[in-house]
């Protein structure tokens, strides 16, 4: 007999049988088998994850998904979640997996930061009638332009490889494999239409997507999946992935059942085997080795594209960032601990790293102290949920923000945290053909475009209100932020004044 204890259900759909027209759309919609048709009625089975696909599908609004009572006696220390996880581990002996970003409220600092606006001493700007610029560059900057002995500017000697974007937004790295072909197609098309960047993720680049390569940033992760000279040379920039905010210090693991023909072709690995990304890059055991990988990528792309490095925000992030810039990175991405993932050990996802707000400010300050900040583009990601988060993150020090989860939500994702199970009912984080076909590329593209367009308009509104007419004048402009949270020490570390403090 197996030592299995059933864990109480967490969610339960309720069917209004009066309203229900027995169309069975909900049953088809549920990829977790939580609904069944019995005795001429829709009945509730086990396994509901609150993805709410059934709610959206139901033509008569006959379904409500409820969170069930915790089923455990209240206890201030052993929360129901802790008890559930312990029971589950006693069942399986396994490392608990989860997905999406860290699920712990106390880590949010964006909500404790307020923005400034112009009153009297300088004019606010109406972005609908006067220009407010959001064009953003990604790549290494030369620090100064080269002037020859005759006092003329030498352009050839001054220019460096640079990527131009119309918004300070990059859709983060989400690999084909962690999401479906349709989902990645929609992200890439949206990036192309918006003229921003999208990351390929570590799974290589499908042949169909090469025409959009000018808006793509190719990731080189420790697994080197699909990394060929062609891949490196076609895209507009190359990103070395050292770490991910959701799982700092951890590798990647795409289970074999997801490695079907499409994934196998793109990653260039055998069908059905696990796609494992080693925890470290095995050619990088130290900072000078990172310099080696940066250099070989620059050699291989003939110095035509910027080469960046992406790390998870960890405690010593400032010093690490400065080392990375000194090692030759043209841009640097810091991924905070609330960043998303298609699959990560829960223990790492919820307990390792640091919030992006603190990390981006720490890195910006450190690079400034070392005189490096005007040489490098700083990207920040890790739960940039809304335009407000984006604006605060830029003011804390980021040139560009990376966004993933919000783009997925635009496509349909409801953040039910089941990506690692590969049964995404919205056709996003799955490779099952009957599910992936649910995601219409055209519609998803348009929805992502709409959302980021709105963000950019909101960015302009805020910039205008601050009396700033171009986004670069907001980057690291912490003067324009104030802290209103519970812990003034955080304000100090962020280098942001407390609300109520004036200019001087």
């Amino acid at each position, binding site marked *: 007999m197996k030592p299995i204890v059933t864990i109480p259900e967490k969610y339960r759909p309720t069917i209004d049988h009066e309203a229900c027209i027995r169309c069975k759309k909900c049953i088809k919609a549920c990829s977790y088998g939580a609904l069944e048709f019995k005795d001429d009625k829709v009945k509730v089975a086990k396994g509901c994850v609150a993805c709410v696909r059934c709610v959206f599908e139901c033509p008569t609004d006959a379904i409500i998904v409820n969170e069930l009572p915790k089923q455990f006696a209240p206890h201030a220390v052993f929360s129901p979640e802790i008890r559930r996880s312990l029971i589950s581990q006693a069942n399986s002996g396994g490392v608990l997996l989860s997905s999406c970003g860290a699920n712990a409220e106390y880590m949010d600092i964006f909500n404790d930061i307020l923005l400034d606006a*112009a009153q*009297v*001493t*300088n*004019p606010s*700007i109406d972005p609908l009638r*006067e*220009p407010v*610029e959001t*064009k953003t*560059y990604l790549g290494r*900057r*030369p*620090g*100064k*332009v080269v*002037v020859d002995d005759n*006092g*003329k*500017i030498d*352009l050839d000697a*001054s*220019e460096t490889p*640079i990527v131009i974007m119309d918004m300070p937004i990059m859709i983060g790295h989400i690999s084909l494999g962690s999401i479906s072909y349709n989902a990645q197609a929609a992200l890439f098309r949206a990036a192309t239409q918006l003229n921003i960047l999208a990351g390929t993720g570590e799974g290589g680049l499908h042949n169909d997507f090469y025409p959009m390569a000018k808006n793509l940033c190719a990731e080189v992760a420790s697994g080197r999946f699909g990394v060929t000279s062609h891949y490196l040379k076609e895209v507009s920039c190359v990103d070395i992935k050292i770490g991910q905010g959701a799982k700092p210090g951890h590798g990647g693991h795409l289970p074999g059942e997801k490695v079907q023909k499409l994934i196998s072709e793109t990653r260039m690995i055998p069908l059905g085997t696990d796609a494992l990304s080693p925890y470290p890059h095995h050619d990088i055991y130290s900072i000078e080795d990172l310099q080696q990988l940066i250099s070989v990528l620059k050699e291989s792309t003939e110095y035509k594209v910027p080469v960046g490095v992406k790390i998870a925000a960890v405690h010593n992030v400032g010093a690490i960032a400065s080392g990375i810039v000194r090692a030759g990175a043209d841009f640097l991405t810091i991924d905070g601990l609330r960043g998303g993932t298609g699959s990560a050990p829960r223990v790492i996802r919820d307990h390792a790293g640091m919030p992006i707000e603190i990390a981006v400010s720490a890195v910006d*300050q450190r690079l*400034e*102290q070392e*005189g490096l*900040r*005007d040489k490098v583009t700083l990207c920040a990601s890790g739960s940039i949920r809304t335009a407000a988060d984006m604006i605060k993150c830029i003011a804390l020090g980021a040139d560009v923000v990376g966004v993933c989860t919000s783009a997925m939500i635009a496509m349909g994702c409801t953040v039910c945290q089941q990506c690692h199970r590969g049964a995404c009912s919205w056709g996003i984080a799955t490779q099952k053909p009957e599910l992936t076909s649910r995601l219409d590329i055209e519609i998803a593209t348009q929805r992502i475009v709409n959302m980021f367009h709105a963000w950019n308009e909101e960015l302009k509104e805020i910039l205008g209100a*601050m*009396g*700033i*007419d*171009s986004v*670069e*004048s*907001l*980057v*690291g*402009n*912490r*003067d*324009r932020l104030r802290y209103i949270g519970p812990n003034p020490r955080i304000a100090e570390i962020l*280098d942001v*004044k407390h609300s109520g*403090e*004036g*200019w*001087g």
Partner: protein
Amino acid sequence: MDRDYLQPATLSCPQASRVFAEQSYVVEIPDCHKPRMGSCGIAGCINIDGSLISGSKIEKMITTMSERENGLGSGFVAYGLFPDFAEEYCMQFLFESEEAQAETEELLSHWVYMIKDEKVPTFPQRSMTPPFPLVWRYFVRPKKGTEVYIRTGLNEEDYMVRLVMSINETIPGSCCVSSGKDMAVFKGSGYAREIAKFYDISRYKGNMWLSHSRFPTNSPGWWAGSHPISILDWSVCHNGEITSYGVNRKLVEMAGYKCTLLTDSEVVTYLWDLMVRRHRLPVTATAFAMAPWYYKDIERLPDNERRLANQLRITYKEAFLNGPFSILVGRSDPVTMIALADRKKLRPLVMGVSADGNSVYAASEECAIKSVQPDAEIWATRAGNPAIVKVGEGIVRRGTEDPFLGAI
């Protein structure tokens, strides 16, 4: 406190300039009310043939615009002032006390040869609020070849910048207000006419004058934070508020300047020194970086100019002065006046030239020019486009030309 305008924590905080604000020359300034911004008046005049202009002329210009000030700061800078000491750096100081002066002189003795020093005559006005600073001027030469000099590893000018920064940062009650050759800054807390009388500006003659009167909106003014703000032979009079100050300060601090004067205008001065003197950028390119064209307009430029425009925006995005401003910038060798307004033209700036073509003026308002040169022909520069006038050369740019004439 004041961390905004001071150094990152590791670079140690200045105590010096604070003293002026807190203790001596302004009544009751709470810590949280350090001056920062101003809506002010600016005026400048220059004689192309290098002939000398009496200080009473600039005094008349600036006081004509009395509606623009509120008595919390004013200042003047004159070029071509010391023909007998044109090769020495003239370091002009405001001292809070004799101790501060002694400490400063002790430091100076290690860094520079003292060629001459003199008390700057001052005439406190009854309407002004005491106490008043000691004003002293030293003509100096760097002690080249000494251990101090060699250890810095700097060239002569950067060495002088380091010296000024180090005094302003570390000696309480001592502020070096100008440090260039053949020029000096006269400034303080008060109305323009009070400051003019305090220094008896009419006793000086120079081939170029710039002036500023202040209307600091958020807080009272103080002596060292008045304009012009100067380093080496650069001086800047600034009208406006820089909404990108936090960004601009980064660039100059990374380059080794210390922002100790607690005013956003300070970064403008250091940016000019950094970009034109140290990076050797043409003035037009520097002005473009500070007040760049919109990207959609850059698209219309011819190939090379478009490349340059984009490169300047990429490379010097921290030098972009966002928000409303008009500035007058002076420097010597040859004596040059640069007038520049922001790219949205949110602050006023007019230019004028006398009928004989020899005297050129810049001011916030036309009345300032007409008060001293009734026959002046008046024109306006374009937003973000610098007018440049040089002694011996004339009006090099009217501020209405192509952006990069001669830069590439």
